[in-house]
């Protein structure tokens, strides 16, 4: 009887940032083949982009496309010699600083909404998310004028302000869903012990929800890093982020596929790695904490 129970429910594997491991029944070999083929087809453009970055320019447009060849690093040398570095640094600054502000504002807010809900907390929550639902196109015109007058056009600071506002509602929803999972008895015990708000937050709740906090920060970084609309509208003329490097590269350098592929690879690599690490928490962030 005891063994039956033990074998009936195998312990779920935990990933780095939490989240459940997948369950399911054993599929047939044919199923596995189909799944692999579909996955490779979906992934192929990414793979091809990655490979092309290591080809010479003449090999890059060669057909049939070669998947095995002698790699060259000349494209990477070339893009770094035409000033890729400041764009990369700006992207890093924009996504890391904005995410830091998102966490500084978002953790207390989500904490308050989840564990000390103020009056009308539901309205506040839906207000936050409704701002995420409105197209940035609705505010881009005045932002352009304000930024022009405040000399913020073409600056990273200008983008940081907007990326914070863009990610804050998402982060609050996601963080709130993590805070709500803290067992009530843990909180009650802490309060009986006379723990104040700060102790309750820093010593008890934050360590328990750390994987959730990290996953939230990762998702905010991903969205800020990939953001394009604000960047192209407000920063295209200045020292901007990586997406703008790509735009300018195409217009000024013309069609050099291998170099284009190399800069694309540099542009996507940090985020793809983050996303792979956070993939089990990704769905919670994307669904605003609704799906776990």
């Amino acid at each position: 009887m005891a063994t039956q129970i033990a074998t009936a429910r195998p312990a779920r594997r935990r990933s780095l940032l939490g989240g459940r491991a997948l369950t399911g029944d054993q599929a047939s070999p044919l199923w596995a083949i189909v799944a692999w083929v579909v996955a490779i087809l979906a992934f192929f453009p990414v793979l091809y982009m990655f490979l092309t970055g290591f080809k010479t320019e003449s090999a890059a447009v060669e057909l049939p496309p070669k998947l095995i060849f002698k790699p060259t690093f000349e494209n990477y040398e070339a893009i770094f010699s035409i000033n890729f570095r400041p764009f990369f640094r700006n992207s890093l600054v924009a996504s890391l600083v904005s995410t830091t502000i998102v966490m500084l504002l978002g953790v207390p807010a989500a904490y308050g909404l989840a564990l000390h809900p103020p009056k009308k907390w539901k309205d506040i929550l839906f207000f936050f998310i409704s701002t995420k639902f409105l197209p940035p196109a609705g505010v881009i015109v005045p932002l352009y004028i304000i930024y022009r007058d405040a000399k913020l056009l073409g600056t990273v600071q200008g983008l940081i302000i907007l990326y914070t506002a863009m990610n804050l509602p998402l982060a609050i929803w996601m963080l709130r869903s993590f805070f709500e999972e803290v067992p009530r008895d843990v909180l009650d015990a802490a309060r009986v012990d006379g723990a104040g708000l700060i102790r309750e937050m820093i010593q008890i709740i934050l360590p328990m929800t750390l994987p959730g906090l990290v996953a939230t920060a990762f998702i905010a970084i991903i969205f800020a890093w990939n953001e394009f609309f604000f960047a192209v509208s407000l920063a295209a003329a200045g020292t901007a982020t990586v997406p703008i490097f790509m735009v300018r590269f195409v217009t000024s350098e013309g069609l050099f596929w291998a170099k284009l592929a190399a800069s694309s690879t540099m542009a996507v690599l940090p985020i793809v790695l983050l996303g792979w690490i956070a993939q089990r928490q990704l769905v919670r962030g994307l669904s605003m904490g609704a799906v776990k």
Partner: protein
Amino acid sequence: MAITETRLEQISHRRARNSVLRWLGNQPIGRVLVLPALIYVIVVTQLPFILTVWYSFQRWNLQRPDRRGFIGLGNYRTILTRDPAFREAIVNTVVFVVAAVILSLLLGLLYAELVNHRFPGRGIVRTLLITPFLIMPVAAALTWKNMMLNPNFGVVNWVLRTTIPGSPSPNWLGHFPEASIIGVLVWRWAPFMMLILLAGMQSISEEVREAARVDGATVWQEFRDITLPHLYRFMQLGGLLGTVFIVQEVDPLYMMTKGGPGNATTTLPYLVFRKAIEGSNIGQAAAVGVIVVILSIIVITLLLRALDRVLKEI
């Protein structure tokens, strides 16, 4: 004398600070915690919109600042009656969003069902499948435009030529711009749908599936009779969120077609960009912005009502 003045200033400063602190101290703790974030979001996202409305009533072109002036509903009249780009943009927006949401839901459903069973390398397959969603949209758009869809050197036409001898090598972005954009959108958003639907599939209890299999259900029967009905709410959620996010996508438009040929791939948000940043027509761009927001509020109100119901049920 100077010393007393600074002293006085310090005291009044401290008093002001104390009264702020006292006010904060008397507030419920939840409100104090939420307030900074709330103020930030209101200032950055709501106040500019008031300016959008104000600008939309003005004749204002950045190239002709001398002609700036209040013209009431003039911009709206021009856009609604004499601007074919606007009408095209409305149609394009609806077509792109509806097609991309439905197709990415279907493809995402396939992805999710594939990785909902155990097989060797399942984790890697899932990782490969979500990757298109992580790729910076600008980089993805450039890869598709050049390495995939280029009429002469692109992989897609090469595959067509080699598998179907004598097949034409279409100029995808020239002749089928809408379909090409929708294709790239679907490639990018199907992983998003997969993640939501997979979470839904995983929330079906193993016991139910087990019972179905003991009764001799095939994979297809299990999918149709157990998975699909359970997934309905998750598909709604995916559809709602997908709609909201895909409307806002301008990256592939800018990188692949610049909204063209003509206005064939210009959506409403992209039209605002074209008018404001490329055309310097602040007044008209603001008017389109206001219309976009009004339409969004209508759609969002309907969606949120549905979403609230969905969120409660999950």
